[in-house]
């Protein structure tokens, strides 16, 4: 079961909820969805939810490129998929990581998502050597060091507890530190927190 956070940007409610229903049926994926109809709040939502995949109607994108979305979300690894409901200029589409048409079957969508995720997995394997933490992982370290539970961290950072646990597992693997008191040493040495922040514990 692979967990994916997906944001859908589509101005048609019918298309949007149709896609939502189909995505939830996908075998082998646990998908957490966010829908947006108004692109005005897109940037904010991307920063907040940090989706793995952004499915966006290029018409709704109104000239903004996938590159810009990735920048806005602060996550260069986010995949941008074009949602096609009609004819679209090919020149625009080549910047997207994939495309889903409204006539795609469930199987086709599944294969496309699997392909996108496979790329993602390979990339993490390549960077196995690197041990530096991502911005999000550092945020989580700070929360752990302050003595917050997974539930509290999830609420604070607008994540699912499942995602928090995955992050914590990655942090432990990268740093080879498994205990909260070990993370405290890491956080103090790297100046992620002040001693006074954790004084209570």
């Amino acid at each position, binding site marked *: 079961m692979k967990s994916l956070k997906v944001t859908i940007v589509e101005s048609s409610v019918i298309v949007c909820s149709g896609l939502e229903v189909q995505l939830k049926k996908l075998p082998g994926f646990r998908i957490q969805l966010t829908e947006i109809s108004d692109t005005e709040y897109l940037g904010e939502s991307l920063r907040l939810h940090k989706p793995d995949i952004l499915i966006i109607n290029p018409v709704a994108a109104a000239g903004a490129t996938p590159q810009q979305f990735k920048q806005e979300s602060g996550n260069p690894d986010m995949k941008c998929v074009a949602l096609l409901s009609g004819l679209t200029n090919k020149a625009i589409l080549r910047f997207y990581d994939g495309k889903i048409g409204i006539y795609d079957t469930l199987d086709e969508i599944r294969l496309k998502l699997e392909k996108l995720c496979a790329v993602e997995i390979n990339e993490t394997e390549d960077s196995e050597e690197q041990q530096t933490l991502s911005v999000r992982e550092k945020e989580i370290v700070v929360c752990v060091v302050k003595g917050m539970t997974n539930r509290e961290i999830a609420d604070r950072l607008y994540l699912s507890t499942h995602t928090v646990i995955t992050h914590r597992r990655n942090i432990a693997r990268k*740093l*080879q530190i498994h205990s909260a*008191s*070990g993370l405290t*040493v890491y956080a*103090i*040495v790297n100046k992620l927190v002040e001693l006074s922040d954790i004084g209570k514990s």
Partner: protein
Amino acid sequence: MHKKTIYKETDKMADLISNNYSMLLVMSRFGISPGYEDKSIGEVCRQNEVDVCTFLTVVNFLHKDEDKPVKDVNSCLSLEHLIVYLHNAHDYFLKFRLPHLRRKLTDVLKDDCPPDVAFVITKFYDEYAEEVNKHMMYEEKTVFPYVQELLKGKKNPKYNISIFHRRHDQIELKITELKNLLLKYYPGKGSNLFNSVLFDIFTTEKDLTTHNQIENNLFTPAILEQEKLL
């Protein structure tokens, strides 16, 4: 020098230790004083009132350095003597090794580290030492008395050694973490004393690992046999 695989009663005690200096710890845990002259293992053991079979079983187990349970524990092994050995090992860790390491560590940190870093490293260490203390006290207060009763022929219906085996955690994991923390993130300049602390941590880590192996792979199987007898 020729490396032996199995030691016998007739081998020289001094050779055993020259070949593998970590056996020095075994000596003090069995209560054997140094000054072995040219005496054999058997002679030294008898002189110090140590059960030769138990001594050789432990020595050969450590010497083989394999992490798997001993099958068919030699019936001449004395659980009383093995408990004395384990108890002295606990004393060594709790009353000597860990406090000594803490003193050295705080000495290093005091001169070489920002105070906040020194504080959290010391805190980490203290939590660790407390974990080891709890771990070993459980054995002292629950496991050893159980075995002593067992040897008298009384079986506690509410306890058996598999309970111990299940909850026996790997106490060396956290010192491995301390080692990683100091190696990767230590912000000070480092010094001879810092290196010495690291050497101590390396040996303590190894020592705790083998201590746990004796409990899991020698002590536990021996008690299982004893439980079957009743």
